[in-house]
């Protein structure tokens, strides 16, 4: 019988094979969604999809691109913003 706390659909069901040859179910938490641009809503590049524990152990440069508004706006929106500020 599956215990009540494992019935939640926020958990992923992963079938794994044990060294004894049995197939066993592992309930793992899901990854978060892809980060989106604050202006246009496009998927951001250079931002990994990882749970908070893994993000905390990553260095800062691994979590966002080295660019102004990196990790917040996409490259197209940053160019529009810089052009508007320059003019």
């Amino acid at each position, binding site marked *: 019988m599956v215990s009540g706390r494992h019935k939640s659909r926020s958990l992923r069901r992963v079938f794994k094979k044990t060294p004894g040859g049995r197939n066993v179910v592992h309930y793992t938490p899901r990854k978060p969604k892809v980060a989106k641009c604050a202006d246009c809503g496009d998927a951001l590049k250079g931002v990994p999809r990882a749970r908070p524990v893994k993000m905390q152990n990553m260095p800062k440069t691994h979590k966002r691109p080295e*660019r102004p508004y990196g990790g917040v706006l996409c*490259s197209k929106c940053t160019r529009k913003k810089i052009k508007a500020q320059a003019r």
Partner: protein
Amino acid sequence: MAAFFAASALEKRLKLKPDKSLLEDAATHSYSSLEREEEIKMFDVGRLCVKLAGRDAGQRCVVVDKIDDRHVLIDGMTRRRKCNVLHLEALDETLKIKKGAIHTDVKKAFKTIGIELVDTKPKKAKERPKKVRKGADKKKKESDKPKANPEIKEKPKVVKKKKSVPKKKAVAKKPVKKAAPKKKK
């Protein structure tokens, strides 16, 4: 959403091409050779620009030299390197600089505007510890054997003293007498 699909179906029936000027962005625009020539005319030597792409984005720079019909050498608050003209936004101001000017001359020119350039030293990559594989120890040569630990002192060699054996004196051998042959009766 239904109107969007209906419009595209209508266009297909009438074989209408969509208006490119509405859909195209500056990023997706494919430049012809004539357009490129006009684009690069703006970027003369001494023209102040703002960089749009890369980690230097948002910083001001000056065109130092023209390399190609698309590329230009820039210097200033950004790193001194070649840059595509599409990644630059030209400003109204110009600076008095010679073609191929040194960084120090560019620094002086920026001071006239009121911008002080800060020189940063290039970062050297730190030496990272080399990863040693598990099977690497077995493949070591005899010459790579570990040297003796200097802390462990060598034990003094114990030399066993041999017991002195007296030398045998040379003794002359006595002549062996042979038995006389027996007489037959």
